[in-house]
């Protein structure tokens, strides 16, 4: 769009009712096409969606490195180690054996071989091409299809069993890079011959992994085949269908798990003697509680910022014991619950999940909590502590300090520490009414806890004050916009993206901070699908890094 036209539209808009029009989306160069390794959750979702089979691969694959605040961004760099490949192969064997076993073959294999003790190329082709299209997220090439049929035939012959043939061929399909990496495949852009654009299947994958955290379904694949995802009107129709689907919750859950770094629950430790109520069940429920609270809140179309003030949540009996509230529930299910004002549980930040994660196994940590608020919820970077801290300042055995506030005052007063601790401690100390397991308390070592806090120079009191301060700080809203966009495009937000992120930020405010609207807007944005030209120069450093001694 030309500058003149852009200005013209802006002028028109000013003349019209403001709510009726929007600024146009700024253009960006985009990043070169890349490929993202499937996360463990995506792998499980894909297998479950394609085959209806549950696999548990948690903690098995090469861990993805959280990058620029998101694991989704780390997936873009991920490589596959020998151990990692071995585990993909083992998962592939497990899945392919179950898909072709006597229990599943009738429903999952679209045909019956003429003779189950022999190869049957026609039936193998029907199964491998149908499955391959879902696993590769595009139709197989002729060469690929021919290969997997031939492989099924060879293995069937060697085993005297048609189904063993499929098992072997499917296992190998499940370890190909085509499956394990979601790649941005591109084509020449008809609108600009010098540029590339994502092809229809890559667009379908982008939409599907962003909105559903899984592989495209049949309708989306068909839409890609018909070219509908390149046309903005039908794209909107498809995005609306996807967002209305129950899978949209799966997608939102995946985002908030990544956004809040909830994978840390996998290695959470609490001392059973100090916190006897904090059991494995409590930990699992606490993780679910925070996600459930957010999903419920945003699904109802509430203002995103109110997740920091809401007292509405869900409880199980196990959680209720830690929160010390009576609930009317005899089984292990969830019940919706609203904390009373005097229970001091305002917002997701005061729930057990974040309080327990950002603490130690046997005690609270104002520093870690303050840092988590800054980094997770406000997207601000807190520097690491210097290596040469003299801790003797704070560890005087004869110190009369009873509370964390008294102990941490030393940080604030030491010039080397003050810079960062002024950023973290005033927030963290206002959480001190929650112990290391997230249980409410009024005292520490029999001394009264002062839970006053300060956010960027604005003082407040206790959990309720913090809730208001977080809600009203523009950083919390722009943080979720920034992360959602980064999550959607699978890379960190760079200079080139700033205008688009600001545009989304404005739109978020205009929608009264409706998260679902934000997600929709990202999915419909041009930026979401924009790629620059592929980078064809040799990545010398990368080659060097993997050069082996042989």
């Amino acid at each position, binding site marked *: 769009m030309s500058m003149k036209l852009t200005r013209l539209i802006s002028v028109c808009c000013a003349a019209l009712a403001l709510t009726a029009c929007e600024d146009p989306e700024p253009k960006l160069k985009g990043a070169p096409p890349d490929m993202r390794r499937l996360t463990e959750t995506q792998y499980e979702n894909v297998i479950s969606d394609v085959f209806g089979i549950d696999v548990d691969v948690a903690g098995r694959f090469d861990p993805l490195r959280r990058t620029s605040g998101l694991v989704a961004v780390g997936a873009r*760099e*991920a490589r596959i180690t020998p151990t990692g490949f071995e585990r993909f192969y083992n998962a592939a064997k497990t899945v392919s054996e179950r898909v072709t076993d006597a229990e599943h073959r009738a429903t999952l294999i679209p045909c019956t071989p003429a003779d189950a003790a022999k190869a049957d190329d026609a039936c193998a082709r029907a199964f491998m091409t149908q499955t391959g299209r879902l696993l590769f997220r595009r139709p197989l090439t002729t060469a690929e299809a021919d290969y997997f049929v031939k492989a099924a035939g060879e293995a069937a012959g060697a085993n005297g069993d048609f189904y*063993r043939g499929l098992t072997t061929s499917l296992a190998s399909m499940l370890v190909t890079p085509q499956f394990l990496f979601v790649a941005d495949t591109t084509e020449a852009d008809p609108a600009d011959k010098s540029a590339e654009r994502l092809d229809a299947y890559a667009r379908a994958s982008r939409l599907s992994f962003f909105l559903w955290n899984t592989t495209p379904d049949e309708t989306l694949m068909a839409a890609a085949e018909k070219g509908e995802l390149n046309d903005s009107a039908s794209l909107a129709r498809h995005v609306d269908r996807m967002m209305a689907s129950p899978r949209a919750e799966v997608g939102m859950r995946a985002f908030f798990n990544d956004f809040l770094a909830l994978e840390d629950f996998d290695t959470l430790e609490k001392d059973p003697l100090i916190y006897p109520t904090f059991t494995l069940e409590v930990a699992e429920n606490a993780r679910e509680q925070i996600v459930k609270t957010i999903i419920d809140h945003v699904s109802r179309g509430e203002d995103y910022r109110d997740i920091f003030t809401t007292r509405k949540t869900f409880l199980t009996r196990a959680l209720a014991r830690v929160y010390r509230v009576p609930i009317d529930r005899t089984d292990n299910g969830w019940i919706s619950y609203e904390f009373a004002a005097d229970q001091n549980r305002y917002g997701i930040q005061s729930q057990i999940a974040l309080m327990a994660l950002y603490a130690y196994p046997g005690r609270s940590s104002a520093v870690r909590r303050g840092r988590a608020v800054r980094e997770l919820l406000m997207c601000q970077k807190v520097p690491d502590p210097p*290596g040469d801290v003299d801790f003797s300042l704070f560890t005087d055995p004869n110190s009369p300090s009873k509370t964390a506030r008294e102990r941490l005052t030393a940080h604030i007063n030491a010039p080397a520490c003050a810079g960062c601790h002024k950023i973290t401690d005033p927030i963290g100390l206002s959480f001190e009414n929650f112990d290391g397991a997230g249980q409410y308390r009024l005292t520490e070592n029999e001394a009264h806890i002062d839970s006053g806090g300060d956010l960027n120079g604005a003082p407040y009191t206790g959990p309720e004050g913090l809730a208001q301060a977080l809600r009203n700080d523009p950083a919390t809203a722009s943080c979720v916009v920034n992360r959602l966009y980064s999550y959607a495009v699978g890379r960190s937000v760079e200079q080139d993206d700033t205008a688009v992120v600001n545009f989304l930020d404005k739109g978020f405010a205009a929608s009264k901070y409706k998260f679902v609207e934000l997600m929709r807007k990202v999915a419909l944005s041009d930026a979401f699908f924009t790629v620059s030209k592929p980078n064809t120069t040799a*990545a010398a450093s990368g080659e060097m*890094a993997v050069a082996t001694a042989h």
Partner: protein
Amino acid sequence: MTVLLTKVRERRSVLKGVLGGSAVTVALPFLDGDLNVNGTALAATGAALPVRFGTFYWGMGHTPGHAITEKSETSKGIGFLAETEALKPFEDDLNFFGAYAMPLDGRSNYTHYTGWVASRTGTAPAHNNDIPAPTFDLLIADAIAGNSRFFTLNANAVGMPRANYSARSTASRAAAEISAAALYQRLFGPEFVDPNNSEFKPDPRVMVQKSVLSGAIEQSRDYIKTLGAADKSRLDEYFTSVRQVENQLALQLQKPPPNDACLVPPAVTEKPMEEVKRIARDMDEVIETHGVMAKLFAMAVACNQTKVFNMAFTDDFANVRRVGETYTHHLLTHEEPLDQKLGYQPLTFWFNKCGSDGFAAFLKEFKSIREGDGTLLDNCLIHAGSETNYARVHTIDGVPFWLAGKAGGRMKTGYHVVGGADPVTRIGLTAMTAMGVPVESWGTKSLKTTKPITEVLNDRATPPPVKTESQG
């Protein structure tokens, strides 16, 4: 080398005579491995014993003044103090390296991170998530692990898949094994081929699996032509990893040579879920898990399942408790007051001692397996180290390091080596040299070194005399 090969051949023909001329199958894995300087071999086949390499990691270093008696220059004899007393019986298997420096050339000391990364990669990390170069165990694996069943084995006793101190790059780091039962299954489950089982029938289905896998990967190369250069480089690493599984399948089709040292350990079963997925892990559990894993590691090495292994007793942030204590090991290092009478932090000392005890327990497993005319430990080189010297203030100069085992005769042992402010990379270079990695220099900037520590290396050209092997 020619000389050594001749010796092996001579012994092999002697053995042939003993065995009455029956055909002796020489397994590929052993031939590919480096030859033992002593010329010792597996009694059953006469194949040369491979030298294997491992690392052991514990978090939070030592307690200064209570671990090892300081020395001013390198000499024989290690002064074990209270914290390391469990290692005293291994004095003849160990070298201790003190006072080596970790110059960072202006880069930050990322607490509990820089220390292990710089000492294992030879380069100071640029941020607290950076792995700037491959860790040296992988350089050794590249040279010696070629066709082992497992390229490397990685495990830890703290239940954290991420706590693996072996990585090729920031984005290439495998998950560590955290369950002893899963480790057992991986090593000695149905796919393990027992070298001492006289019945051996290669499963033809495995051959088909291998060929189908290779074919699928081969045809994926067409697809890769469509990708950008950075992604191609990532896929090069992927192809290397694929070959590892192809190797595993190939090894299932070969009869391994009989191996006296290899005794399949009793099965390790999964604890009930409520025990495994406990919310708390304390030092007692770490010790127990480590003990089982150490046995499995040693036997995996003896059974020639891997030539390179990495064990972490605790992680770099030592997120380990003692039951009922509000502080973890890491927190204690910073916040536990110095006991004025003892002169150290008593609880921190207790945790640190657990690290030394753990290392001793690890060594014990390797030493208890007879191999050739010595022990498995004699044919191994095990590097042990931490990420800090004095964790209380995060010092990284003088981080304690050990090299255990005689590396098939290439290492002299029993020394306390004083670094005298030389870069810590000299230890890694020494290990690589002992393991036969063709590397002349290692590390970058001030960490670059070309000098292995010759005081503890036997000259390869003049190996000690070959011992007469007693048939057993």
